[in-house]
């Protein structure tokens, strides 16, 4: 299955756009659960109430480039609890704790090791 999305040509998806096919639903998951090598496209950023108010966390994630349509790939994991994770986010690298990564929904590339 191809998503029509490659690393070099990210597309901007509507925030609430439903997945196109049933196969894609299977591949949707949270970045917080992803392992090394998993890659895909951000389907939705929706923060939860935590250390920061949800709206604030959402804006911070967006400002750092975690935005719908951006490509992500998990590059590295920390030693303890595989936390935090280092991800490639479009053409930059970002470190994030899994706790905050739970706000990011990914449509994983099936070729990846999701």
């Amino acid at each position, binding site marked *: 299955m191809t998503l029509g999305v490659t690393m*070099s040509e*990210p597309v*901007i998806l509507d*925030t609430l756009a439903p997945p196109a096919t049933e196969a894609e639903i299977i591949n949707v998951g949270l970045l917080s659960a992803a392992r090394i090598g998993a890659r895909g496209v951000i389907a939705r950023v929706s923060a939860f109430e*935590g*250390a*920061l108010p949800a*709206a604030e*966390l*959402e*804006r*911070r*994630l*967006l*400002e*750092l*480039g975690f*935005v*719908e*349509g951006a490509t992500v790939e998990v*590059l*590295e*994991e*920390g*030693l*303890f*609890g595989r*936390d*935090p994770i*280092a991800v*490639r986010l*479009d*053409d*930059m*690298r*970002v*470190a*994030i*704790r899994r*706790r*905050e990564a739970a706000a990011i929904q990914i449509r994983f590339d099936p070729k990846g090791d999701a």
Partner: protein
Amino acid sequence: MTDTALAPTRLALVGNPNSGKTALFNALTGSRQKVANYAGVTVERKEGVLTSPSGRVIQVIDLPGTYSLRARSPDEAVTRDAVLGRLAGETPPDVIVCVADATNLRLVLRLALELKQVGRPFVLALNMFDIAQRQGLRIDLEGLSREIGAPIVTTVATRKRGIEELVARAEALADTMPVGENVWHEPSAAEIRHAHAEAQRILKAHVRPPERPDTWTSRIDSVLLHPVGGLLILSAVMFIMFQAVFAWATPVADLIEAGFTWLGGAVATVTPEGLLRSLLVDGLIAGVGSVLVFLPQILTVFFFILLLEDSGYMARAAFLMDRIMGAAGLHGRAFIPLLSSHACAIPGVMAARVIDQKHDRLTTILIAPLMTCSARIPVYTLIIGALIPRTTVWGFLNLQGLVMFGLYAAGILSGLVVATVIRTAFWRSASEPFMMELPTYRWPDPENVARNLMQRGMIFINRAGRIILPLMVLVWVLSTFPYPPEGATGPAIDYSFAGMIGHFIQPLLAPIGFNWQMSIALVPGMAAREVAVAALGTVYAVGNVDGAGQATLASILHTQWSLATGLSFLAWYVFAPQCVATLGVVKRETNGWLWPAVMFGYMFTLAYLASLATYWSAVALGWG
């Protein structure tokens, strides 16, 4: 344009972190810089001056890096307020220079779109353009300039390329472009998304992705961020840094100390015996020496920090340590200040500025003096040598070494506990998420490192020195006046204010097993921890405690102190804020007396409680 000749044109540099903004600032202003603090906040204000080829005086101000004008930290609030012209006591900038890493344009384009809303004239500086070219990145400068509505200049700050053109463009903007209406407001999530989409569209239309993208960063990361290997490498880097402080800085510090002792001796021979000589030699020269003696350690620690920051490794170190430090509620970046504090709390406290978040930084500063600094070593060595038997336990462990290890461990553990208490009791709601960019690896620019290193040194001497020196003189006054009466038999210090204070607080210290000699030694010992050894020498009338004197003092302590008293004294030195220089630096770094007062209060309380518990446990064990 007579008015421009009178008032200098003001340029403000705004950009993402790691965009080479500071390198550009250095390229623009050279050595004509000054570093101060913004009024009321601990954010550093860097300003420089240059004269353009046309003879105009231009003031450049380097604002803290940010991804958005929507401020999330005190640093970013300064950037926002400066850009919007809201900063108290500052005139708004005439032209904003938006500094971009040409190889990483996505996020800075969104920032540029925000700047556009502010309505002030701005120019986009595409920095590190040489790297972009090497990677085969194609940027349609004209199209990009049209889209963002601002002129674009390509620069290579580290090689001073494009600087003249940047200045010329900024001058032209200042002269011709009127200040537009400010329509900026804090963007909502939907607006940020929209701006991202807009930036993405612009990027796609005018920037062709690199033909030869940087692959080194990923390759290096796969080694340096390896869960096990990465931590081993980090330990090695930290070990080298720690060694350097002891191996390089300590001899220089000793040399400075010896130099000032020599100077004091020389001055003593040419001044008449009396108050003036004592003030010059024991007060001023010793005081200045005690400030400068910290410089080698500060410079060594900051040399490593600057290399780690400029190369991009600092963010990786924070990544590797985040989970470990996070267990105590600390930021991953707190690791380096706390490690430095094992050499000396002063560079450690100063190094805490690598932490962006205010509360994380304050917590780190507050626990930094709990780490076992090198000034405690003489105290520990003296007491352990005098009172702990040199026996072997469990067949292979040296008991003295074990106690020494225990003292180090007590410092680290109590630091982590205090940090946890501070976080949970006071700042629970302010816990910051850990997310940050892992910048592309780069070779540090030697000029940049040298300039920043010099600035750190000057800041310490100018700012902290001004606080430390008077405090040192105060300690001298307390230990010197009044003079002993004619025919006095005891040591002179016994008759001084320090002696009076020592006798006065002795009842307070009796429950923790301190005798009056110890109580007195604590007063001059406020100057620095190791001074307590010399002070004990004075009180016990040993004279010079170097070399043989130390052994004499140790044998006196061996006969006069009980083991319980010795252990209590050790426990005291794990916690007590016996160092006015640290308090002075904390005052400078936090911009007020509140936090040094809090530090002083909590550390004395802990010291007293720890000594109390230690003394009575030891007495109960029959060691009284």
